[in-house]
């Protein structure tokens, strides 16, 4: 498979870019932030996303979706990254839809997937518990009770947690923190008794929440996949999410870079355009190369996911690790090369720096994924 977009993928990119750049430039995020918008994204825009088939992009056609692949999801994520558009696309359409589609039984799929595709259901995955992403350290307890389970514990960095209609919770049904055995995914109704949700407005002004569960009852229908055997399902879903975030970070890095290079071509100091200074030229050129190798690694990961989610782990680790390093460099160079202007809130570049920081933490940072690659290669 060639590492270039097909004609159909290019058309998808153009239509996503058209909608997003028109309706959700960076000023859109700014106004949501400044008005302390209670939803944190535009419901109207999300409805447009659904009408264009994006909300159900990964949902199979039999459940009302577009039945496209991870490469296509990455194409949309990259465009989201360019304008930092706050959107349920990642949590609902990529991560939750994949979890339901890959792990759900017939009843679960037909209950939730059509509603995701129509844009009427928001869903999310609650995984992290500590400060860093450590999926196997999951300790949130689920104990058997009657026909089902009772869940108790806390989750953090739950994307769109305060607006979700469905929370997919990773819990421990047996074993202890650190073990692969004993993990189970549950479909939790956030309105259920014992669920408390605190919206945590993050540095990037995107949605996240802390969720606490106190003896929350989930009956047997609410188990996603096999009891105790959730690690494989979780790995696959997380890798899909990681591939998508890497694509968002490629879009973000590319946009910051383009803005910075434009600035180098227009800003004058010492009677010269600052882009004439070799010190800046070489740094810009190095960053260009970083972005290109990251783009290729991300396409490779998305293709690997499309070929076989179960065999994509190393390609995904490479992509997410590279995306973290590159985005961090891109936003830092972006602020530095914009000089004092880059430090002002009035200027957009800071929004990119803040979002890059959150993307870096989401589903494992560069160090985490570099470590995963080392383990996979046996050293």
């Amino acid at each position, binding site marked *: 498979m*060639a*590492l*270039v977009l097909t004609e159909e993928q290019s058309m998808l990119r153009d239509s996503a870019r058209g909608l997003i750049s028109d309706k959700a430039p960076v000023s859109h995020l700014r106004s949501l932030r400044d008005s302390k918008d209670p939803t944190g994204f535009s419901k109207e825009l999300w409805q447009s996303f659904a009408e264009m088939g994006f909300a159900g992009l990964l949902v199979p056609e039999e459940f009302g979706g577009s039945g496209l692949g991870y490469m296509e999801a990455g194409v949309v994520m990259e465009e989201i990254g360019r304008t930092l558009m706050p959107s349920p696309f990642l949590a609902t359409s990529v991560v939750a839809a994949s979890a339901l589609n890959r792990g759900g039984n017939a009843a679960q799929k037909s209950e939730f997937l059509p509603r995701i595709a129509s844009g009427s259901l928001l869903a999310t995955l609650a995984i992290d518990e500590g400060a860093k992403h450590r999926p196997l350290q999951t300790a949130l307890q689920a104990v058997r009770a009657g026909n089902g389970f009772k869940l108790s514990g806390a989750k953090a960095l739950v994307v769109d947690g305060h607006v979700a209609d469905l929370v997919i919770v990773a819990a421990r049904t047996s074993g202890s923190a650190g073990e692969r055995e004993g993990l189970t995914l549950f479909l939790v109704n956030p309105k259920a008794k014992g669920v408390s949700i605190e919206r945590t407005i993050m540095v990037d002004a995107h949605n996240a929440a802390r969720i606490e569960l106190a003896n929350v009852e989930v009956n047997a229908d609410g188990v996603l996949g096999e009891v105790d055997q959730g690690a494989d399902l979780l790995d696959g879903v997380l890798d899909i999410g990681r591939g998508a975030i890497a694509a968002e970070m490629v879009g973000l890095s590319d946009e910051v870079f383009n803005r910075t*290079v434009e600035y*180098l*071509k227009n800003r004058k100091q010492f009677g*010269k*355009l600052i*882009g*004439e200074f*070799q010190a800046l*030229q*070489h740094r*810009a*050129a*190095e960053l*260009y*190369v970083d972005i*290109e*190798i*990251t*783009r*290729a*690694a991300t*396409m*490779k990961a998305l293709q690997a996911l499309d070929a076989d989610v179960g065999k994509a782990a*190393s*390609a995904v*680790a*490479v*992509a997410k*690790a*590279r995306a973290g*390093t590159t985005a961090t460099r891109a936003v830092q160079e972006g602020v530095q090369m914009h000089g004092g202007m880059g430090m002002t809130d009035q200027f957009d570049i800071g929004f990119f720096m803040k979002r890059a920081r959150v993307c870096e933490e989401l589903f494992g940072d560069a160090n985490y*994924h*570099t*470590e995963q*690659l*080392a383990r996979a*290669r*046996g*050293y």
Partner: protein
Amino acid sequence: MSETETAELEQFRSETRAWLEANCPPEMRKPATSDADVFWGGRSAKFSSEPQRIWFERMRDKGWTVPDWPREYGGGGLSAAEHKVLRSEMARIGARPPLSSFGIWMLGPALLKYGNEAQKKEHLPKIAAGLIRWCQGYSEPNAGSDLASLQTRAESDGDDFVITGSKIWTSYANYADWIFCLVRTDPTAKKHDGISFILFDMTSKGVTTKPILLISGYSPFCETFFDGVRVPKSHVVGTVNRGWDVAKYLLQHERAMISGMGERGVGRPLGQIAADSVGTDAQGKLDDAMLRGQIAKFDVDEAALAACAERAVDLAKAGQAHPAFSSAMKFYGTELNKRRYEILMSAGGVDALEWESERSKQGARPRAWLRTKANSIEGGTSEVMLGIVAKRILDLPGA
């Protein structure tokens, strides 16, 4: 790609896999570890082993020393997609290239684009069959990064040019049969406008070579001197005084070649090589946490670069490649290869310092380490590559 094309390609893949399985000797499925493992061809070529000869001859007979060149010039006539399949099938079993040659990597592509029919018919089949070994006469003592300031003169004399001057860093000039050379045919024109690209036999009267001893203790490069060498004007490739166009086009191929020189994806992972000398803990992790981290970061970057190299080929095939992209790849690939050898030296510790012992295969690792330092100089320095990216891709002012 249509279904028929996909099916044909899959058919080609299974045939290729079977053919390689039957024809590639087991000895040729291991990475080359010394220069003797590489077959360069040429008038005085010798095979270092019987499997090397068999492998070369079988591949040559299929035209697969140059798989994507047209059949009429001794190539395999493969499409870009088929060529990619062949490369991936060779990589799958770790098959070595049957023939290494500057004729294949550099001159061939330039001749295919700029050569006239007689030149193509004369030279390409001999490159494909490994009969003639070529060297590159580009750099001069006073024309390194600023290559276009080169001073080797070619003076018109009837049907000939008479060439006088000297070249430096001429790789394997002492083994080469012919040279492709940049010469100044118009000393009065602006520096880029008076250069011609010319071919001649290294046995011509007036050509001498002198190997240069490098920090690695090897002499892969020479100084090459021309004292009134007489070369027919018909040996100019492209137009007289327009040699810079040919030179730049060839450099793109040279840079692509150099960026791929690291042993990407072949042999044992770096982490396992390091484990031999550093040791591992109870969980199998390298017993040097900082080195392990360096290796893992290297592996991430190497995998990303490999994806980018694959994408560069795909972009070229789709007609979307930027002509200066090979400079970006050359920069990253050579810096990465230097990093690889710094890690190997660190991992090897004291063992990697032995220079002349049997145990160290005459200092194979430290010599290779020192050799890599040239990667970011030869074919255009890293600084020149970044300048090209800044100017031609990013369109930055005054670069």
